[in-house]
């Protein structure tokens, strides 16, 4: 069996260093398997968050060879094993221990987005009627597993640490999911511009590239939201139509 070396970040609260571990690897292994093997063989105190091992819980997010990825979905044959494989915690969030970060900021952000506000039920039993073609768009957004890889790779959060002014790609997807929902009546566009900092996104598409669910975050969520914000705040013609008709965006 072949051996591979993993350079794993060890330390608490941001302080620490890479430590190298060699372990045997075999066909079909993923990085999470290797991390578990390292825990079993050499570092039982290595902290790492994981759960489903199937790319659906979004727990094992890390930076592997500098790229934000799910450890459970990164097969070793996708990596160059002739050099040590680096495994680091997410850099956009406060570090706790080894590969574990505190992602609770995301939960607070979610609370700050206006909640789903459905229109009056369509039927007397309190239910709504929706056509499939009306929910096709938002179903893509519901694939999100909240792994926060998109938040991690976004340079607005990662490099500029504008957590207090920008909600990040994950929550722009969440807002798009609500804004485009055919029975939602809420208006989040003003908040998106003024509170949630959609203007900080400069469309680098890094979030789209790292999404394990292959959600077209930039093209299908962020840019359509930016266009809706333009309708509301930057387009004089749309504003004129709004003044004349009383409203622009319709269901």
């Amino acid at each position, binding site marked *: 069996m072949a051996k591979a070396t993993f350079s794993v970040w060890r330390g608490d*609260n*941001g302080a620490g260093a890479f430590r190298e571990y060699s372990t045997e690897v075999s066909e079909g292994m993923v990085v999470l398997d290797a991390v578990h093997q390292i825990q079993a063989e050499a570092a039982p105190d290595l902290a790492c968050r994981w759960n489903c091992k199937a790319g659906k819980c979004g727990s094992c997010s890390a*930076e592997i*060879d*500098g*790229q934000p990825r799910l450890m459970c979905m990164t097969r070793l044959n996708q990596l160059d094993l002739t*050099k040590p494989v*680096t495994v680091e*915690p997410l*850099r956009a*969030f*406060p*570090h706790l221990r080894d590969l574990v970060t505190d992602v609770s*900021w995301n939960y607070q*952000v979610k609370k*700050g987005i206006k909640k789903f506000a459905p229109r009056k039920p369509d039927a007397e039993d309190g239910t709504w009627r929706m*056509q499939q*073609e*009306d929910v096709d768009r938002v179903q893509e957004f519901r694939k999100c597993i909240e792994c926060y890889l998109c938040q991690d*790779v976004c*340079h*607005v959060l990662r*490099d*500029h*640490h*504008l*957590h*207090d002014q*920008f*909600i990040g790609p994950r929550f722009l997807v969440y807002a798009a999911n609500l*804004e*485009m929902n*055919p029975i*939602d009546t809420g208006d989040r566009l003003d908040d998106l511009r003024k*509170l*949630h*900092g959609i*203007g*900080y*996104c*400069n*469309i*680098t*598409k*890094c979030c789209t590239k*790292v999404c394990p669910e292959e959600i077209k975050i*930039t*093209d299908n969520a962020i*840019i*359509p939201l*930016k*266009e809706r914000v*333009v*309708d509301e705040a*930057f*387009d004089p013609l749309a504003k004129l139509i709004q003044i004349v008709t009383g409203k*622009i*965006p*319709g*269901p």
Partner: protein
Amino acid sequence: MSHATVPLTRRRYGETMRQDAWWVEPLIVFVILTSFLVYATWAAFQNAHYTAGPYLSPFYSPEIFGDSPHAWFGPKPGWWPAWLPFSPALIILPFPALFRFTCYYYRGSYYKAFWADPPGCSVGEPRKTYLGERYFPLILQNVHRYFMVTAVLFLGFLTYDVYLATQFTDAATGATSFGIGLGTLVLAANVVCLGGYTLGCHSMRHILGGWRDQFSKNPAFRVPYNCSSCLNRSHHRWAWVSLFMVAFADIYVRLCSMGIWTDLRLF
């Protein structure tokens, strides 16, 4: 909004743990866009060799004022300031140029390639401050939809140019007859590529129905939105192909006009 304390140290410019050649893509974008800008600027200032037979270079179309038979209103007007260089291309090129400059796809690309903001995904940045597109001048990127409308008008002009490129005049008799040359196909391919790029633009997609939440109540929007979305999925490819094609069409007409290349008459 809640704050998050991020104690991990900020990375220096270009610093990354990535092991792949992340710098190749922004470098290619930088080289191609710079080359295109230099060539297009040079070509626009030439004010010569932009027509050949029935062909008109897309850099000079529509020719509002100019010396060729394609000009709408005749030669350079008398009121044109003497200090201002004149070329038919200088009058019209700002519109397609600003359409591309404000395009969502190009924005993401040139922010990386020209401004290193960021240089690559998960690669350290050179600057500490960041304003995004929230303030002047980048807040002006929001006018993209207006340039998109001008781009649609240009598509109409260029389509008409393709029709004109099928009307060949016999030098001896002065009679006009239908024909197709290699240049006709080049100009037609240019319209197809520009159409693919313009009609799949994110602003176009929004105007064609993206702003609606329910297509079932407004079926007239369904087909246009789906068609635009289909083109939008390859928007980046259309962006590059159309950029190459428009430059190639200009080069083709220029070479024919200069006598370096003889147009191939297919029938």
